[in-house]
Each structure stands twice: as C-alpha cells, then as structure tokens.
C-alpha cells in the first residue's frame, strides 16, 4: 500500500492528480476462502482487516450485496462515544473509542475525528439524579464523564434554550466523545484490508447456505457457489434474513431509524447534544450542516425510509431546544434499517453452527463500535472462541437470562 503523505500529495499535484493508485483492488471471486465475511460495511471490513493484520489470515473475502459502505455505515450520524452504564459495555465501547483515537495513524487515512464532546441533557430532577448515577458509573469504569450545571451548559452551548417547555436542569458530558467521517472509516479499512490481500467483492449477494453436520459447507452467491472454512455475518438490519438462511432464529427486530441534515451554516454548535427525554440529538458537521436524529419508527420495517410522523416529532423537539435555528431548511432526510435486540446490547460471537459467526444486533449504535467490533470478531473467528471483551455478548445470553440491559440503564440515546 502506498502511503498517503505530504510528499505523495505534492507529487500527484505536480502530475495533475492523474496517477493516484486505486484505493482498493476489485478482484475476481475465488472458489474457496479461509474466511468469508458477509457484508462490506464498517464491521465486515474492520473484521477482515484485523484478521489479516493481527492473525495472519489473509485468504479472506468480504461479500457485499450492494456497494461498499452503502448500508448503515453511510446512513448513521457519525457519533462516537463510550458513556455506557454496565461494565461489559463500557469496556467494549471504550476499547472502540481508543482505537478510533489512533485510527487515522494506524490506517494512514484521515478519518476526521473531532472529539468535541457528547452532552446529555436532563429535563427533570429525577432525570438529573439518574444521570448522576449514570455519570458516576462511567467514572468508576475509568472513563471520562462530568456533570454540568445549567450555566456551564449555557457557556458551552449559548444557543441552547435551557428554559424550554421541559427546562434543562443539568446534564453530563463525555469530552472525549465526538464525531468522525463515516465514509472515511469504511474506505480506510477497505484500503488497508485490500492491501493485506483481502478480496472485497461488491455486487455479490449471498442467497443461501448448504449446511450439514453443524457446519456451513457452501455459500451460494449471485456470482456462483463458494466454500470457506469459516463464515461470518455482518449485515446489520438484515441479520434475521441471513441468519434464517442458515436455519437460525435471532432475537432481532428490524426498524427504520431516520436522520436528517439542514442547509449549511457557519459554526454555531460546539458539541453533540442528546436529549433522552424529548428524544432528539443534534450536532454540526464539519461542512456546517446541522445533523439531527431521534427515535426509530415504531414498527418493523425493511424500507430504508422513515415516517413523517416521527420526523415531525424530532423537529418539534429540536426547534424547542434551538429556537434560533427553527427557520432552517432541511436538505436531506433518510433512514437505515437497524437491528434492535431486546436488551439493546449487540450479539457477537459464535452461533449454533460450528463455523458460522455473527456480528449483529447493533441497533442504533453500530458506528461507534466499528474498530472494537472488527478487532474482537477477528480474534473470535481466528481462535474459535469469544474475545474476552465480548464473552457476555453471545446469543446464549438470551437462554441463560444474563442480559446486559443497556436500554434500561443508559436510555434511548444509544
């Protein structure tokens, strides 16, 4: 892989930017791979990269039905944070945040990480009490977290209307939280994985499996049948659909989660704000657009579009918090199909089939987990046992009852 540097930029500028090499290869599909990963989003590509980089397994294919990063990897609101309540989630998402902090250097690709802080608002005394408990739990897990008073919040976000219908009585901030560029993360992993020998096959849909004796033997694809020693599923909203091909039922509901951006403004918001109570979150992208999101639509859906009823709710909450931005026009609105689990903790690890692995149930929070999800799944696939960080995230927790109920502990802003 030719590194990107000031020197390479200067050299290519002199030749009119006509000689940049391809960012990743587009190879032919082979008949057999050591590992097949289904889904070339952030998680699939990161898994392939860490398999090649840390475990020396390079005969790997990443199969993608559409185009690379065209699913939820390109539809999220780019938020990165590790302010979770339970120790299992905290350890995992903090590992992810730390990998993100060094990712631009590790992959030689600028992911435009901006640690501007994640500010969560409390609108009642009870909520503020709950938030103190939450923020202290985060600190006990050795992660930065700080309770802010209303005046400290106003200093940080002067535009925020703290005397709104549900007044802002305080909040807490994780200053290391922030955003990064989602396309760059996907491209960076794709480029690094491809350079290590991973085959990324786009426009290749998995249509079924031949499974016998507790093993997946053949993977049927739209480009022909292939075989693999190990197969891993990383398909986000379509986890139920692909798992069903292998005869596995999963505790997942797919719903549409929407987001939207406004026309661009000069810099006016400093941090990412979350309001679990009136259910909206917002921040300003580096391009100046205000990026707004909220809750998921209330019924199962595989349509990549959100309902107008919920959009109206999101916008009402946003306008109440930022009245000075209420006359902005929205430029775009879209949705991704997210795979919710009953406890809103992801499902990672082994499946009832010996050589089939799963990385799913990311729900509304998969983007922030990409580096750790890839790292721990690569370990799990290479060693055929769960990485210590994800040992509690297996499918078996629904049978043992050992759920990690992050949905109840740290609320809807997931």
């Amino acid at each position, binding site marked *: 892989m030719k590194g990107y540097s000031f020197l390479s930029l200067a050299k290519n500028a002199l030749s009119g930017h006509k000689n940049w090499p391809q960012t990743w290869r587009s190879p032919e599909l082979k008949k057999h791979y050591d590992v097949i990963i289904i889904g070339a989003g952030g998680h699939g590509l990161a898994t392939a990269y860490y398999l090649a980089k840390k475990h020396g397994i390079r005969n790997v294919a990443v199969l993608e039905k559409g185009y690379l990063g065209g699913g939820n990897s390109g539809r999220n609101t780019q938020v990165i944070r590790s302010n979770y309540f339970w120790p299992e989630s905290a350890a995992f998402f903090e590992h992810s945040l730390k990998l993100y902090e060094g990712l631009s250097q590790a992959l030689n690709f600028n992911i435009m990480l901006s640690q501007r802080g994640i500010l969560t608002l409390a609108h009642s005394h009870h909520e503020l009490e709950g938030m103190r408990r939450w923020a202290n739990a985060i600190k006990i897990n050795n992660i930065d977290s700080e309770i802010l008073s209303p005046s400290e919040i106003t200093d940080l976000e002067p535009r925020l209307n703290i005397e709104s219908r549900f007044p802002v009585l305080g909040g807490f901030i994780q200053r290391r939280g922030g955003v990064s560029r989602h396309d760059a993360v996907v491209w960076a992993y794709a480029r690094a994985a491809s350079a290590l020998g991973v085959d990324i096959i786009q426009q290749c849909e998995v249509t079924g499996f031949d499974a016998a004796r507790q093993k997946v033997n053949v993977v049927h694809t739209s480009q022909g049948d292939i075989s693999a020693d190990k197969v891993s599923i990383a398909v986000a909203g*379509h986890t139920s659909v692909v798992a069903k091909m292998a005869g596995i*039922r999963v505790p997942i*509901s797919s719903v549409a989660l929407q987001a939207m951006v406004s026309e661009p403004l000069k810099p006016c918001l400093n941090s990412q704000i979350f309001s679990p109570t009136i259910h909206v979150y917002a921040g300003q992208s580096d391009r100046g657009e205000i990026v707004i999101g909220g809750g998921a639509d209330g019924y199962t859906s595989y349509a990549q579009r959100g309902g107008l*009823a919920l959009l109206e709710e999101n916008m009402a909450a946003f306008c109440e918090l930022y009245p000075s931005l209420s006359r902005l026009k929205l430029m775009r609105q879209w949705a991704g199909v997210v795979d919710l689990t009953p406890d809103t903790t992801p499902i990672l690890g082994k499946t009832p089939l010996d050589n089939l692995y799963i990385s799913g149930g990311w729900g509304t929070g998969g983007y922030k987990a990409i580096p750790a999800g890839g790292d721990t799944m690569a370990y799990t696939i290479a060693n055929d046992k769960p990485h210590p960080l994800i040992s509690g995230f297996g499918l078996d927790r*629904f*049978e043992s009852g050992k759920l990690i109920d992050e949905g109840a502990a740290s609320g809807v802003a997931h």
Partner: protein
Amino acid sequence: MLQIKCPHCGVRDEVEYTFGGESHVVRPGPSIDDAGWSNYLFNKTNPKGVHFERWCHSFGCGQWFNMARDTVTHEILQVYEMSESRPVLGKEAST
C-alpha cells in the same frame, strides 16, 4: 404515514395506533426447557416481506386487532380480528 383501518373505527392515521409486535406467538406449556422458553420470549420471525402483527388503536377505541403488512413496501394487506387465525394470502413475500 400509514393509514390503518381499525375494524371498529375505520381509517385513521398511524399516530393513533401502537404497534404490538408479531402476532400468533403461542406461549409454551410449563414443561418447556430453557431454549424453548428463550425462543418464545425473545426470538422473532422478523421477515422481509409479509409480517403478521398486532396493533392497538390506543388513541381511539383501545381495541387490539391483527394486521398483515409488507415490511418492505408498508402495504397493508389485511386487517383481521384478534380471535381469527393467520390468513392465507396470495402474496407472501415481496422479495
């Protein structure tokens, strides 16, 4: 916005209703093992295509009813009573 025809009140907007998840899930008997109980409690069919599901007209008559809906197109194929068994539809999947 979905427009749902409540069997008692007629056509109303989606915001008057609450989604109640998959319908026709049968509670197993007391002799069920952990795997079977977990399957009943947590696992979902979650189909890409026709979904048989429960809805409640929360801000109307408050009654529960069943509905067959396509999860890709959101087309409502049939509304039927809670007591009725799953209907056989000509169209079972859009993909």
